[in-house]
């Protein structure tokens, strides 16, 4: 029983980080219709940018905020320089995916060239712990969980309740028509990448904080969890990504505790494949936009 509780507690903490990354990925994929494999390497970039700032003796949460901004800008630039021109040329889905995989690899190895292949650490593992019911969390885990929840709610309100959110959804459904209706789609797309880039940056730093040590494969090896969570919750759904993150996080921790740590990833994989084959639009998606996403 204690083992189970520990696993769930750990799962919640991991799940929060997964959710943070997954929601950015999900919104990016949902609005821009690009399966961006570079996302993983962007998270790695965030972790190392954060690491560099941490060497200046800044507060770790300030580092997270600053890194988010930097990665957000990098993400917009990436989209403008690579993906938009490709789309304008009418490159197929597969062509764009190959391009993002390539870009991810380039970024990953450029990072290696700068920092080397050795393991780094934020050294945030120790610190005060808080226990409630039989759960034990470190304060940094709690802050990450809190941040994730706040961002998620905010994003949901933004997408469903505001004018810009409506414009984003309109743009994702049909960009040409959206432009014809007077929406400045270029700005909306930029905004989407800014937003998802910021989440990517925050998630990268959060991941670096919660793992003992990390190297240049940090983000790309984490990508599969985020994709699983995003698909589970339904692409483009912030709440869905949150629930998906928690499910994937807890399920993989339980599998790790009771079965073998080596098979942790397998759970995420199994969830993902089952979802894609059975209900590709995700558990919580009701909208027609996502039905369209899955068949076409």
């Amino acid at each position: 029983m204690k083992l189970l509780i520990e696993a769930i507690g750990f799962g919640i903490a991991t799940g929060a980080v997964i959710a943070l990354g997954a929601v950015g990925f999900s919104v990016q994929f949902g609005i821009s219709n690009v399966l961006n494999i570079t996302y993983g390497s962007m998270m790695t970039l965030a972790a190392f940018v954060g690491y560099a700032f941490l060497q200046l003796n800044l507060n770790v949460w300030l580092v997270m905020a600053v890194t988010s901004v930097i990665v957000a800008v990098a993400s917009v630039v990436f989209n403008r320089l690579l993906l938009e021109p490709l789309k304008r040329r009418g490159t197929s889905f597969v062509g764009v995916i190959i391009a993002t995989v390539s870009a991810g690899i380039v970024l990953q190895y450029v990072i290696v060239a700068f920092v080397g292949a050795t393991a780094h650490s934020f050294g945030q593992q120790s610190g005060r712990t808080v226990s409630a019911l039989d759960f034990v969390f470190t304060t940094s885990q709690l802050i990450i969980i809190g941040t994730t929840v706040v961002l998620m709610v905010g994003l949901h309100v933004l997408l469903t309740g505001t004018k810009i959110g409506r414009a984003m959804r309109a743009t994702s459904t049909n960009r040409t028509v959206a432009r014809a209706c007077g929406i400045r789609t270029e700005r909306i797309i930029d905004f989407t990448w800014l937003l998802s880039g910021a989440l990517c940056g925050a998630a990268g730093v959060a991941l670096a904080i919660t793992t003992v040590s990390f190297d240049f494969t940090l983000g790309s090896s984490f990508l599969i969890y985020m994709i699983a969570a995003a698909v589970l919750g339904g692409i483009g759904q912030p709440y869905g990504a949150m629930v998906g993150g928690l499910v994937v996080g807890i399920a993989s921790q339980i599998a790790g505790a009771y079965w073998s740590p080596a098979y942790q990833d397998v759970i995420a994989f199994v969830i993902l494949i089952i979802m894609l084959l059975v209900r590709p639009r995700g558990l919580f998606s009701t909208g027609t936009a996502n039905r369209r996403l899955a068949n076409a």
Partner: protein
Amino acid sequence: MYLGTDLLATWGLNLEFGVAGVANFAYIALVAAGAYTYAVLTLGSSSANGAFQSYILGSRLPIVVALLAAMAVAGLLGCLIGATGLKRLRQDYQAMIMLVVSIMATTVIGADQAIVNGQAGLSLIPNPLASLNGSARAWTYVGLVAGVCVVAYLFLRRFTRGPLGRSLRAMRDDEDAAVAIGKNVVAMRLMVQGVGGAYAGLSGALLAGFIGGWSPSSWQYVETLALLTAIIVGGIGNDGGVFLGTVIVPVLILQGVQFLPQIASQPGLVEDLGWIILGVLTIAFIFVRSQGIVPERRPGQRRSGTTAPLALAAGSSGGTVAARADTGAGAEEHAPSDAPRLAAWSVAARTREPGRPPGDAAPGDDVLAVSDLVRTFGGVRAVDGASFSVRRGSITGLIGPNGAGKSTVLGIVSGFVPASSGSVRFDGENVTEVAAFRRARRGLVRTFQLPHEFGRLTTIENLLAAVPGQRGESAMSVVLGTRYWRSEERRLTERAGQLLEMFAMSEKAHDLARELSGGQKRMLEVMRALMVEPKLLLLDEPMAGLSPMLSERLEHVCSQMRSAGMSILFVEHELGAVERLCDHVVVMAQGSVLSQGTMADLRSNKEVQDAYIVG
């Protein structure tokens, strides 16, 4: 050496990705499957290698058996992975599945100690030429691999050239259209993934035998990217181009960087550089020359100076190319004739029962009868109890306001849209549950409202690809080679030539279909359907967007086809054409049949006027 094994792999992947359009991002996992199968089957029991490695099999099978097993295992796995693509997900979702499969395969294998020794991998895998020593062994091995490559290339040619390759490329360019002309795309895709997988397995097995070791680090998912880059750089869909790409990418770049001097302070940096170059190269090629250094060329294809073919571009881009008036060399092979030679047109033989003149069908002889068709989309009843029939040898019009359900009915009749309830009887048989491609083969052929051309095939190839059950498309053609299908191909080419003449498009025979104008693409669509020799042709708004001259030509052909015994169901808004052509007209409104009769009857019908003609 690496060139050889990489070649096997890139050729296999090119068959899947370049020719058949299946983007298999998990391809390297199949290479690995071959390597592991080979290793596990050839390794002896654990005693020989000490305690650091253990095997459950230790069977020491002969090398040749192990190679074949490696091919079989990888081929079967390829089919299995291919089966995930059967659920029709959007391309990027499929790519996602493949990527994840690849990543997870490394993880799962890395976690398995019993058979494949986890992350450490297997070592001391027997070399097939263990009896030789040193450099003699290495060079003989290179010779062996070269020999295998030559055989593999000759075998591959039978897949990628000729009618089979043409059909595969047709599927790549437009899957719906391939189904509409009776191609079994499921079987084709599984076959391609099986063969591609077998190539991967062979490549992996030979590699493992040469290196002597194999572990998860040798087949990270990025290796698939290296193979894809080779294809993109060399030329998608072109085996020769892929050869060049393989020389450049995995061999010159990834192996080549290892010969650069190492930088002492940062070991491994030079290898990393190889990956950076590779990634940049891929992106650069997608941008600048997405068709590769040696682009795919179709037989007889005319060199087009006006538009650069975008090999990675999405299917249809709308006709833009100006009609070029210069002579098409290939098109003039067919003897010119004044009148379209319908006598030679074999549709008559297939459609008309012996002894029965056209247009004189017995009463109640319906080629098509639909009854009580219902189709709901969510809460919307798009088709709501429609019943009507099409007389054999007649042209029946299907008209009605927008949203009446005409196109959905056409979709249900052709098998593209499943009916919620009701039945479709074609030629006396209930075909409601029959797969779309089978209906096409039985002679129930549709066209699409928007042009669905096979863009990267030439016009005449679009027509040739449409013939169902041709010899050159069968598995036998791979075994027996060109001799088996050459004479049939000549006959078909002649028939296609006649059709092109009828539609006055002989000049365009060797142009790529995507370079045709919008109107020409529509003509192509009708011609392609005719190549299937339909008993009943379903035309979905064929006149839309045609110039008066072209639509007149199309009308003319339709009535000629009717005289030859073909039946046509004709969805159209252009009522003039409907009136001139159709023997019988069915009016639909709000999902059901409102009225039917001759156009003259309908014009006087108040209800029809209210619903449609007046507006």
